């Protein structure tokens, strides 16, 4: 539907449903008039409190704690103000409990809460607003709110400061104790070993390196001596065996050579069958057998005197004895060096732990914290950490707030016209019954032959005339009555 079609249809409909329109106009006006009459006059008193809050613990936490924002602030303030403690005082102060049983206090408190608005303006200004039908009570209650809130907040803050103070003091005491204990331990450490003193870390390291090197050298020497000893051992035993064997064979060979020489001499003079030659031959044979037997004998020949008396052997034995002495000396030296090394390591460790503890306790931040704690304690002592200032004091409200009576009257007039129009428009849009003829042609592709307006009969016209007069009178009377009541209200006749 086009806007002009809607407008035309709305006018037609208004005329068609004229009685309904006028009735609604009268009802709406009457309702608004009644509402305006019954609407309680509201007075608002408000106050602004500048809250400059520096949390004692916050600088000490080095940004770990989050600063309270505006939302939190109003929420916190609401918690404090709407707490039973303050509300009870306000209830008593406002005189609500007079002549009423204390069982009603819960309900009264809820009602008061509904009329109290706590908001934050900017970051640090807290606004307390209280609505009441009595201007004086609005003023007094708001004033009381501000007073109690400040009082309660300072008390809470003092408690917080006290806790913070105790905490910091305890921490400081702990640090001090630790520092003292560590310094004492360091003193002991330093006095226990002269080497251990501040800055002797490098010396310990050098000494440890030196000891390690010396141990390595001694170990090397020990290994060499052991190898040498093993070699000598082998040489000593080998020399003894070969000497004994060579000596016995030699004896056999010398005898055989002598007998051979004698045989050769005898053979110059005698035949082989000569008994001397035969004898010699037999002797040679025996000796040869003995030599062979000697060669084939498996067991080692027992060392005998001749071996012991061998000079090479004796030389070897001497060297062997020396080497053994050296090994023992080296072993003793290594053990001693290792003992020294363990000692140095222990000293080093003690030195390090002492250094570490000293370093920990003498770090800058600890000192700074201690300083901050001291500053905060002083701040707290001087009440410098938290300030409340009444930015805007409460004033006695002079004029009521909220809609005035004439607002209701004017609103009634406007609504009295708009509501029926709105309803008619809604009916026009939602009712499936057709009210705009041209819509039929669009919807059904059938021509609208004609639109026949209502034919007014003379009787109808006559009654319509009376009806229009009557309805106009009703409308005029309604407007006049509303205006008259509003005027009387303004000049305080009513």
């Amino acid at each position, binding site marked *: 539907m086009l806007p002009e079609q809607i407008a035309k249809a709305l006018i037609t409909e208004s005329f068609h449903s004229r009685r309904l329109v006028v009735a609604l106009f009268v009802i709406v006006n009457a309702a608004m008039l009644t509402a305006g009459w019954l609407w309680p006059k509201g007075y608002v008193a408000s106050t602004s409190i500048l809250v400059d809050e520096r949390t004692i613990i916050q600088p000490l936490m080095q940004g770990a704690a989050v600063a309270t924002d505006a939302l939190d602030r109003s929420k916190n303030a609401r918690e404090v103000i709407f707490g039973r403690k303050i509300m009870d005082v306000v209830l008593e102060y406002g005189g609500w409990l007079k002549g009423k049983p204390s069982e009603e206090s819960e309900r009264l408190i809820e009602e008061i809460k509904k009329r109290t608005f706590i908001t934050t303006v900017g970051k640090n200004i807290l606004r307390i607003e209280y609505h009441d039908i009595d201007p004086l009570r609005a003023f007094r209650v708001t004033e009381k709110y501000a007073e109690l809130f400040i009082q309660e907040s300072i008390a809470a803050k003092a408690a917080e400061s006290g806790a913070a103070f105790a905490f910091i003091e305890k921490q400081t005491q702990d640090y001090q104790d630790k520092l003292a204990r560590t310094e004492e331990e360091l003193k002991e450490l330093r006095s226990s070993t002269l080497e251990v003193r501040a800055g002797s870390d490098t010396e310990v390291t050098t000494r440890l390196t030196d000891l390690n090197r010396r141990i390595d050298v001694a170990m090397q020497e020990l290994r060499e001596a052991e190898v040498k000893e093993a070699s000598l051992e082998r040489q000593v035993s080998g020399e003894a065996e070969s000497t004994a064997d060579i000596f016995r064979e030699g004896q056999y060979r010398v005898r055989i050579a002598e007998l051979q020489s004698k045989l050769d001499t005898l053979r110059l003079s005698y035949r082989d069958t000569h008994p001397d030659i035969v004898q010699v031959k037999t002797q040679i044979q025996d000796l040869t057998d003995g030599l062979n037997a000697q060669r084939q004998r498996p067991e080692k020949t027992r060392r005998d005197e001749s071996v012991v008396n061998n000079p090479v052997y004796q030389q070897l034995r001497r060297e062997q004895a020396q080497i053994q002495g050296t090994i023992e000396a080296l072993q003793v030296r290594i053990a001693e060096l290792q003992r020294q090394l363990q000692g140095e390591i222990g000293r080093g460790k003690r030195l390090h732990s002492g250094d570490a503890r000293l370093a920990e306790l003498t770090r800058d931040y600890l000192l700074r914290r201690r300083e901050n704690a001291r500053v905060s304690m002083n701040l707290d002592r001087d009440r410098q950490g938290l300030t409340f200032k009444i930015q805007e004091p409460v004033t006695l409200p002079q004029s009521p707030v909220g809609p005035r009576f004439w607002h209701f009257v004017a609103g009634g007039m406007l609504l009295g016209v708009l509501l029926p129009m709105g309803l008619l428009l809604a009916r026009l849009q939602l009712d499936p*019954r057709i009210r705009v003829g041209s819509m039929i042609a669009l*919807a059904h592709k059938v021509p609208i*032959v004609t639109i*026949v*307006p209502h034919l007014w*009969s003379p009787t109808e016209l006559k009654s319509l005339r009376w009806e229009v007069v009557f309805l106009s009178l009703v409308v005029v009377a309604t407007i006049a009555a509303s205006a008259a009541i509003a005027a009387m209200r303004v000049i305080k006749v009513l």
Partner: protein
Amino acid sequence: MSKIEKALSRAREGRGNLQVVPVAATMAASGTAVVANSAAHPETIPRMAKSEVRLLSADELAQRGLIHPQHSEDPTVQVFRELRTRIVQQTRGQNAVILVTSVSKGCGGSFIAQNLGAAFAFDVGKTALLIDCNLEHPSVHRLLVNASLPGLADYFENPDVDIQKIIHAVGIARYRLITAGKRREILEEHFTSEKMKHLIDTLRRRYQERFIIIDGPPMAKIADIRILSDLADYVLVVARYGRSTDTQIANCLTAVSDKKMLGIVFNEEPRIPRIR
């Protein structure tokens, strides 16, 4: 207002209704209407003039819910004149049988049919005959002083009642009507009868300038509408402001053939009258 002024006013009103009806004394007839026995010789308007009853004044017509040419500035009167002109254009000057039916009961189909008849009658070159076929809720008889005169039902039920006896003058020049009749229990089967067909044919042929308007039942009686639309040349569907819905209109349109459909008359649009 003096007596002379009243007399003059009455004389003016009478002339207004009569328009330029010539007084014809050539043919005499008695009774309420003159209908020839033979359709072969079409009669002319002057014959009808003799059978007129006392013509009704503009106020009397207005009280009966009928338009009067004297109120030519009235938008409703203008609308009916325009409607008449459109139908005449459509029929190219020939007379026609027009069925007027409502989308639903209470849409004002009878009002449109009666006033359309009046609009045709206002034209001196044309006559109008209104037949009340809304047997369940007849209304045409209210236009007559004597509402108990024989009508359509009597014509079907009683062989003694002939066509002349059921056609009545209404108090508007060149305007006749046939009421539904006394016997309302008439069955719809009569519409399909040869007698009905004969009736329509006879009426149509009797006067070439006669426009026959059938005040039909609402579309709820869809069977009757189909039969009556077969008898008619054109169909007008009446929808009413603030009553008819799109669905109802859509249902009606399926019952009438597109060829005969003249269109929709949107009735009873509220109008703010001039109140003096």
